[in-house]
């Protein structure tokens, strides 16, 4: 039996929206939150909301949010009794988790051993197979012969330490393989410091359905429904929802049983996500387990009426899981990820200053964001500005609310995917719930209409008001890429 170790002061070892999210949970529980920040984040929202904040170092993540030593020092110096890593950065770093626990500080997350067991794709697949969880055929032997016999084409190359679509390529013919392996290896080395790759069968048009699991420190593991995350672009999730429009109560029971078996196989504690590929016939295969809070956790919270971060904190303090947890969702929820990226130009990430930022709200709408007007969106971190979440009594009510909320969101100064998200949400397949992981690569979203005269007139008035004043921060470049379509560079 685990003893109860209350959390009074928590280090939030992250930035942006997830740091804000955790800070808010602390307040609701009466826990004092301490933030960390890099030089680029001095005035950031997560710093403003914290009781205390510690400067880690320069902007690059390696010198700040990824520097395990500095983060642990910050926790010690500020007298924190627990650390929440959020997602990304140090969240799946088993050595960091172990160092935190060895310092006598509570780690709000799974045991280091579970992170390790699931962190490397190859051993984790073997472990899952042994636990009776269905697994996609794959290989870590990258020789052409091995691939042909055990995997076959199409296949997907993945970074063994990877996640989030980084270091990942689909290969349809043997000839494309050498380039794909080289490129993945470079990206994997840059992103994770580990170029080890593995390969698995690529399933055509599957759905990405994942199960939220939770384990307490007394050995109980439960599943809390599924999320459908099939709307992806280059393996990055774009829009998620819960429940999945195709998961029946019977299928939910089977998915939940497999997810709980996976989590039990690694003695899981805290929040985790077991990802599956779901085929049209209702069969599913284990994809990977993310041993941390997931970006898209709010759709589960809104559909099931739970606060998963608060639950993580309670469990980390030694409390048991509640006896009663909802088995079926009480509402439908959608989430859209608002990125600083140019949907009209190959989704290139955008940087610059957010000159105006206005979040939507109202019935059923929640926004998890970490930015404010005036913030600089820099090259150093993920270009996600916010998650807009909508809850409704039905899928259609939630979908319409989300589309409306995205239309209310004002983001000036940076190109964002707001308009793209809205057009995707309003597209026929999404309205009908006919999703698969390749849908976005096929979907012809309606073109952006040319602005009406009044838009140009409004812009003209702003230029006229500025008079002869020379541009302070921008330069206009002629089109160097007539084909590529880049038009404005700032």
């Amino acid at each position, binding site marked *: 039996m685990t003893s109860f170790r209350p959390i009074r002061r928590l280090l939030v070892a992250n930035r942006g929206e997830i740091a804000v999210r955790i800070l808010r949970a602390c307040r609701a529980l009466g826990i004092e939150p301490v933030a960390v920040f890099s030089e680029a984040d001095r005035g950031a929202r997560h710093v403003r909301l914290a009781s205390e904040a510690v400067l880690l170092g320069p902007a690059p993540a390696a010198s700040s949010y990824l520097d395990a030593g500095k983060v642990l020092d910050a926790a010690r110096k500020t007298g924190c009794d627990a650390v929440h890593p959020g997602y990304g950065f140090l969240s799946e770093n088993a050595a960091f988790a172990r160092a935190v626990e060895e310092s006598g500080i509570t780690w709000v997350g799974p045991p280091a051993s579970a992170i390790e067991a699931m962190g490397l794709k190859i051993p984790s697949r073997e472990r899952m197979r042994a636990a009776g969880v269905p697994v996609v055929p794959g290989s870590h032997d990258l020789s052409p012969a091995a691939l042909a016999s055990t995997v076959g084409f199409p296949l997907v190359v993945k970074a063994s330490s990877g996640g989030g679509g*980084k270091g990942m390529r689909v290969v349809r013919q043997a000839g494309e393989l050498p380039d794909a392996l080289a*490129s993945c290896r*470079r*990206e994997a080395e*840059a*992103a994770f410091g580990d170029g080890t790759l593995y390969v698995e069968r690529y399933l055509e048009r599957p759905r990405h359905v994942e199960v939220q699991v939770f384990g307490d420190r007394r050995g109980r593991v439960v599943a809390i429904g599924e999320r459908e995350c099939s709307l992806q672009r280059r393996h990055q999730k774009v829009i998620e929802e819960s429940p999945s429009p195709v998961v029946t109560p019977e299928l939910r029971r089977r998915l939940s049983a497999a997810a709980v078996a996976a989590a039990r196989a690694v003695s899981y504690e805290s929040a985790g996500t077991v990802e599956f590929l779901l085929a049209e016939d209702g069969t599913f295969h284990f994809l990977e387990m993310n041993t941390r809070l997931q970006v898209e956790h709010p759709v589960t919270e809104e559909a099931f009426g739970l606060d998963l971060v608060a639950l993580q904190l309670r469990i980390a303090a030694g409390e048991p899981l509640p006896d009663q947890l909802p088995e079926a969702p009480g509402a439908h929820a959608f989430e859209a990820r608002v990125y600083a990226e140019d949907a009209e*130009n190959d989704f*290139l*990430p*955008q*940087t*610059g200053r957010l*000159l*105006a930022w206005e979040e939507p709200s109202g019935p059923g709408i929640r926004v998890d964001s970490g930015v404010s007007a005036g913030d600089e969106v820099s*090259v150093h971190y*993920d*270009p996600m500005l916010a998650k807009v979440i909508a809850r409704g009594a039905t899928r259609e009510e939630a979908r319409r609310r989300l589309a409306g909320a*995205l*239309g*209310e969101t*004002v*983001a*000036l100064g940076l*190109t964002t995917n*707001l*308009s793209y998200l809205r057009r995707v949400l309003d597209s026929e397949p999404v309205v009908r719930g006919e999703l698969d992981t390749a849908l976005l690569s096929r979907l012809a979203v309606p073109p*952006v*209409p*040319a*602005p009406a*005269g*009044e*838009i*140009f*007139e*409004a*812009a*003209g*008035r*702003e*230029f*006229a*008001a*500025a008079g002869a004043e020379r*541009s*302070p921060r*921008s*330069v*206009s*470049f002629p*089109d*160097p890429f*007539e*084909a*590529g379509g*880049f*038009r*404005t*560079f*700032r």
Partner: protein
Amino acid sequence: MRLRDAVTGTLFEAGDGLGGPSSSKRPGDLRAVRDGSVVWVFHRGETYRIERVALRRAEESPEAEHALVAPMPGKVRALLVKEGDTVARGTTLLLLEAMKMEHPVRAPREGVVQRLLVAEGSMVSAGDRLAEIG
């Protein structure tokens, strides 16, 4: 003045009726913010990026014809061509890494790589010249 929508490329000639100071109140139901030579306009859920276009661009920057500039800030991860190479339109010239993703920078047209202005590992800002293709 001549204005251009950065997304659709639509051009618009604004008349003289626009002079005078812009009112501090927002006109109608628009939100507009100027940032140098770009004005951002929000109107009924859509965001527009309107650029002011110089009337005679070619004369102002004669070398621009040949310059290839960085579309975003980042680090030059790999150079895939060298000076003197002949490239086809669409050939990947180099890989730029930003936000941990690789982005290929492709040749806008057929030509010869006259100069490479960056090295592998260079950090570049948006708008920095990367190469000249003649």
